[in-house]
């Protein structure tokens, strides 16, 4: 459902559940590509200025439903697509994205929206050149988040779904659903799986090797 990349630039994406270690890895990848003097740009999920006030309002008042949550995220993504990704790719820049449309597919379907409907929302975007998927056992990821974060927010914990009144239990159940969605998408979108249990520097070496082969030496 995503478009083929017909632009000069390249798109590299990291995906995985919270606490899977993907942000650390893409950061290292970014440093490495910069050190090689590549034209590279790094983008985080959910950072468009235009839509931020609406997202904040909905989260604060807790009036977001699975559908409006999905749509506001897609609006946010569209804004970044039109004003950032598309110009960057046209200009021939390597774009690194910490999370991409797959995050939306995993979360929104876990919230109960129709899988085909949400895929259509993002169908203007391109299929990344490489999508690293960090596969980790649920407990490892959940414990990492619980240990490092003071408080898990309402929507982050999936409390809008009414899975459990207990934030931690709700968070765990929500993450499990998301994990299942990711596993199911791996083949559909050609994820390059990285074993999250490997030592940090080994994972980075694997990623650099793949990027060298698929992006840099082409």
């Amino acid at each position, binding site marked *: 459902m995503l478009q083929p990349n017909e632009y000069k630039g390249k798109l590299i994406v990291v995906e995985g559940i919270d606490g899977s270690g993907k942000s650390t890895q893409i950061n290292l990848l970014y440093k490495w590509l910069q050190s090689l003097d590549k034209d590279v740009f790094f983008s985080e999920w959910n950072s468009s200025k235009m*839509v931020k006030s*609406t997202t904040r309002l909905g989260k604060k008042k807790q009036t977001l*439903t699975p559908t*409006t949550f999905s749509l506001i995220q897609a609006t946010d993504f*569209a804004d970044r697509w039109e004003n950032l990704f598309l110009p960057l790719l046209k200009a021939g820049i390597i774009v690194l994205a910490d999370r991409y449309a797959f995050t939306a597919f995993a979360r929104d379907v876990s919230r109960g929206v129709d899988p085909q*409907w949400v895929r259509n929302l993002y169908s203007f975007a391109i299929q990344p050149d490489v999508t690293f998927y960090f596969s980790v056992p649920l407990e490892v990821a959940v414990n990492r988040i619980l240990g490092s974060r003071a408080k898990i927010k309402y929507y982050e914990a999936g409390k809008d779904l009414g899975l459990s009144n207990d934030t931690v239990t709700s968070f765990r159940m929500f993450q499990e659903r998301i994990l299942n969605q990711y596993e199911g998408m791996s083949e559909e979108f050609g994820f390059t799986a990285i074993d999250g249990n490997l030592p940090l520097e080994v994972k980075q070496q694997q990623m650099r090797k793949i990027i060298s082969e698929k992006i840099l030496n082409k």
Partner: protein
Amino acid sequence: MIDSRFYGAGFPYMNISEMPGKLIVLEGNDGVGRSTQMELLKQWLEVEGYGVSNTGLARSPLTQPGLDEAKAGHTLGRLTMNLFYATDFADRLENHIIPALSAGFCVLSDRYFYSIIARNVVRGADPEWARKVYGFALKPDIIFYLKANIDNLVKRVLRGRGFDYWESGMDVRFADNLYDSFVKYQNQLTRQFNKMSKEFGFVTIDANRSVQEIFEDLKSHTKKLLEKN
């Protein structure tokens, strides 16, 4: 399981039981007289003893501040605008329209997603993509399409509040002046409405006539709809 009350998947996570109310939509170009007719219909329905609730595009408390702000700037892209309007639409549908219909109200909607699709497609959106976005939308009980000649539209707009930047399609610059741009843009919208008329089963109302004549038509169709129960 497909719920035929919706155009697509609807809201799969929600259990929506019987909705005794009626969803009545007024569609048509800018300046065709929708708000006047909405007001008349509301008064008449209330006199007849029906509960009435009004809605219209970009009125959701969730998206209104953000959308106004975005439209005031100059970087709002086509896709972003489409999805922003869809967010507004979904918010009103879930938090206002469906609850009102469940409580037995007649919901009068000034435009529905057909207008949004028409505007999107005129601005270059993929028609199929735009339709699929609204797969969560409820099928109205009746859709009135108020149709008037462009000459009449122009005169009404000029006598009323004057040309508006967006209603004239100036963001896409159909012409270098408001008048020509308005005419071209509204003509293209009409073409889109005509295309959708059959697809979505619009009831076309000749809006070149007087306010009272148009209203009599709307009233008689609405009466029939309400008597069906």
